[in-house]
């Protein structure tokens, strides 16, 4: 009786083990298939909003579905094909959009800028000018300091000292420029203008 029960128990364990392994392998298989879809969703984010439905939803996803459900039975081959398909599109999403006639990001930015300028007019132009002036001033000082260090290390001579002198002379101008920019922002209502500018650009990106 004990031997019979042991054999029966063993058989039950074997069957149970097979069921568990089968469930687990299906679970892993399903998860692996989702990786390609996740990559494709990343590619979707690289597309302009107006092309996401036609390219990703109507074309890429059904094609990936065909690869993962109808084309290939073997899970590893299916995974490789799906990954190759989705990573290729992740890489080329922007190029595909450009070829389809979508404007580049730079063109979109320029368009948003033009709209914002049209809405806020001269006030925003003055603010943007001062913002750009401040940024350029900072970059020049930083460039001179870094350049002085690099030239001193590589060449030596009087040039690094001259560059450092110019940078040090320019440093007091930085807080002055920041204060002036702050005043300009206050006088022209620049904060409100830049906020609206930002909102317009966001709205245009989402369109």
């Amino acid at each position, binding site marked *: 009786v004990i031997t019979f029960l042991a054999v029966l128990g063993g058989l039950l364990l074997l069957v149970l083990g097979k069921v568990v392994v089968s469930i687990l392998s299906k679970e892993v298989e399903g998860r692996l298939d989702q990786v390609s879809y996740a990559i494709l969703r990343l590619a979707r984010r690289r597309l302009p909003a107006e092309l996401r439905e036609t390219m990703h939803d*109507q074309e890429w*996803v059904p094609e990936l579905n065909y690869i993962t459900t109808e084309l290939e039975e073997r899970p590893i081959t299916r995974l490789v094909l799906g990954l190759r398909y989705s990573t290729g599109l992740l890489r080329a999403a922007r190029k595909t959009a450009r070829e389809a006639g979508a404007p580049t990001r730079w063109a979109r930015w320029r368009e948003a800028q033009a709209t914002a300028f049209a809405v806020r007019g001269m006030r925003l132009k003055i603010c943007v000018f001062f913002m750009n002036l401040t940024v350029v001033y900072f970059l020049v000082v930083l460039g001179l300091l870094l350049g002085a260090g690099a030239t001193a290390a590589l060449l030596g001579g009087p040039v690094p000292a001259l560059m450092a002198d110019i940078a040090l002379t320019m440093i007091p101008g930085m807080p002055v420029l920041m204060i002036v920019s702050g005043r300009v922002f206050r006088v022209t209502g620049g904060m409100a203008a830049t906020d609206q500018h930002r909102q317009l650009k966001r709205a245009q990106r989402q369109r």
Partner: protein
Amino acid sequence: MAEFRMTTTVASVLREFLEDIDQRQYGFDLMRRCGLPSGSLYPVLARLERAGWIVGKVEEIDAAHEARPARKYYLLTGHGAVEASRELAVLSARLRPPTGLLRRPTEQGGFA
């Protein structure tokens, strides 16, 4: 109609379309037949569609009944067929080796 840039990749895709003008061409099948990755094929398809050489359509199926989403396929347009044949002929003529190189190479390294 957009300006068109012909490359060997575009030519290989067009050749597949010209094999059977009425044949529906699906993205993944084209990838396999042309030996192109998706990142190269889809920009080409977008360019061809924008130029009006091919037209993309979505399958008219009952997705619930078929248990799969409708796939998008492409067909060559009449204008595309004419232009593609002409451009392939031009490209073929341009890539043909010069007649001077048609001599047979000898074992010693020269030409017969």
